[in-house]
């Protein structure tokens, strides 16, 4: 079961996407993904969910009130760097595309109106690519461990860091206290 988060300020888009994802097969090569979709009509609510749950893929609209798609994906990447990222947008100028690729490292840019088949295969490809990347990392770590390049402690620290970015670092306050809640970081 692959968990997918979609954000669009347009309720009808979210519903149409959900219908497609329920019906259409999502497969790449011989891999078949069944999708579990969480949809949000505001980037802020989506980010809040991303703080608490793990997702395999983020898909966002570009033009939204309050925060645009690139800012949202950037924030989502900071929380869950391993998730795949897609933009589904009706219009974006070159400037937005450049930012999406350079700052966010999106896997795909899908235009609206979209073709259901293309959309599903783009999602499948992004998921397959993510699987491959994670598998590669795991294998590489195994080899490094065998070669003695990395200790199991370091490996565990990396794993924890992926789940909760920043957990392995201690944030010292100016008065020598330890700041635990990242909300207060940088604000003191």
């Amino acid at each position, binding site marked *: 079961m692959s968990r997918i988060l979609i954000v669009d300020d347009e309720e*009808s888009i979210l519903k149409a996407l959900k219908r497609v994802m329920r019906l259409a097969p999502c497969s790449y090569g011989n891999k078949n993904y069944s999708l579990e979709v969480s949809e949000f009509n505001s980037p802020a609510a989506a980010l809040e969910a991303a703080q608490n749950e793990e997702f395999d893929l983020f898909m966002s609209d570009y033009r*939204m009130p309050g925060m645009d798609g690139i800012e949202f994906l950037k924030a989502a990447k900071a929380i869950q760097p391993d998730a795949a990222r897609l933009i589904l947008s009706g*219009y974006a100028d070159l400037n937005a595309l450049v930012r999406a690729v350079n700052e966010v490292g999106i896997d795909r840019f899908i235009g609206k109106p979209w073709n259901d088949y293309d959309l599903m295969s783009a999602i499948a490809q992004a998921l397959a690519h993510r699987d491959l990347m994670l598998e590669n990392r795991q294998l590489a770590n195994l080899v490094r461990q065998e070669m003695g390049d990395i200790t199991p402690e370091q490996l565990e620290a990396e794993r924890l860091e992926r789940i909760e970015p920043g957990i392995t670092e201690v944030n010292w306050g100016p008065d020598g206290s330890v700041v635990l809640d990242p909300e207060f970081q940088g604000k003191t």
Partner: protein
Amino acid sequence: MDAFIWDARFETGIPLVDAQHKHLVDAVNTLGNELLLGDVTEERLQKLFHELAEYARHHFADEEKMMSDKAVDRRHRDEHVGHHRQFVEQLVGLWKSRAAIDKPAEAVHGFLASWLTVHILGEDQAMARQMASLDRGIQAEAAYEVEKKSVDAGTAVLLDALSRLYALLSDQNQTLARINQSLEERVEQRTSELAKANAQLEKEQNELTQLLRKVEEAQQQLLQSEKMAAIGQLAAGVAHEINNPIGFVNSNLGTLKSYVSQLLTVIAAYEGGNPQEVEAARKAADLEFLRDDLPSLVAESQDGLSRVTKIVQDLKDFSHVDQAEHQHADLNVAIESTLNVVWNELKYKAEIVRELGDIPAVDCVPAQINQVFMNLLVNAAQAIDQQGKIFVRSGVDNKEVWFEIEDTGHGMTEEVQHRIFEPFFTTKPVGKGTGLGLSISYDIIVKKHGGRMDVRSTLGKGTCFRIWLPIEGPNSIS
């Protein structure tokens, strides 16, 4: 006019001369009569005159030849010939200027008759008497002297005076003719100078007209290109707004296709009548879900399509292809349609606060006023960095309708405020603004509609543009 009557005293006793004199008298009378009748053709008059003049010359030549053959005294000959010449000149002059004379028939006929009377009675008689003396063997000089003495003192003085009078008249006439001639030349010169100046002026005017047309064309192009640029700015918003509904309607149709085929499968199973197959088909189709989802799928799709329709309608209203002429328009409606089009550009930036008053219809070109509204609204949105408000107000003030578009954006410095209506002045980044929006807006409001436009701005607080439009059109307020 009295006819020129032949008199026995005219006779000189020389048959040739007398015959010629009689002919001349007849010719003068003929010409006089024709002139008097007034309905003869110019051609006929010319012919008569030329015949008369020709005959006079011919007669003079005969007389002069006779005098030289008979060797009449030189003094008489010179005088006599001189008078002949003067007569010819006088006559030609009189003929030429007859159009300008009050009664040409009387003048020409009178002159001819009087001159011939004086000449025949005076000089020709004197010539004849001298010739007779010469025939009798008297010396030419003596004959001349005798002649001078023979005529009684009164007549001599009279004839002399008359001859002098004619000579004087002839001189005067010639001088007048010369003056006339030079006057005519000067008038002609002036006329040609005036004509030249006129032609020059006309040429310059043509050039100016052409230049003006070029300027107007260039301005029209600028207006058009600014409109295109503004529409380009809107394209992003409009594309987004159209692609969104098309996106989900299109996707929903795809979904509907699978729903329908699932439903058809269920129906086919029912028709088959096998309860197990029916159950399997119902399960595969998730009939409960379909029952729930189908109506909302259709409703959402319909809503999406009506949104597209509305956007297209808004765009049409905004561009006002059919409203490029002066008409009475409700500008509150115009600003609403402009807001609809620009809305996609504004909605992520600003909340629109409408404070529209009751305003009468305004005589204007709605398409142009919309262009101004759009410029002001897009500017307002671009002045807002994060989130803000845009106030749109309208109202009536005496004979004018006013509009206000105020934003809570970053405002302008004094220096920028002074330059905003300059063409090509822009503070926007390259590619975002042409620098023509406000200058064209100013042109539309002030020059084309006879309205006014001003701006208040505080750096960091926001900007407020206000425009006034005369209700009854550009010419109603002086």
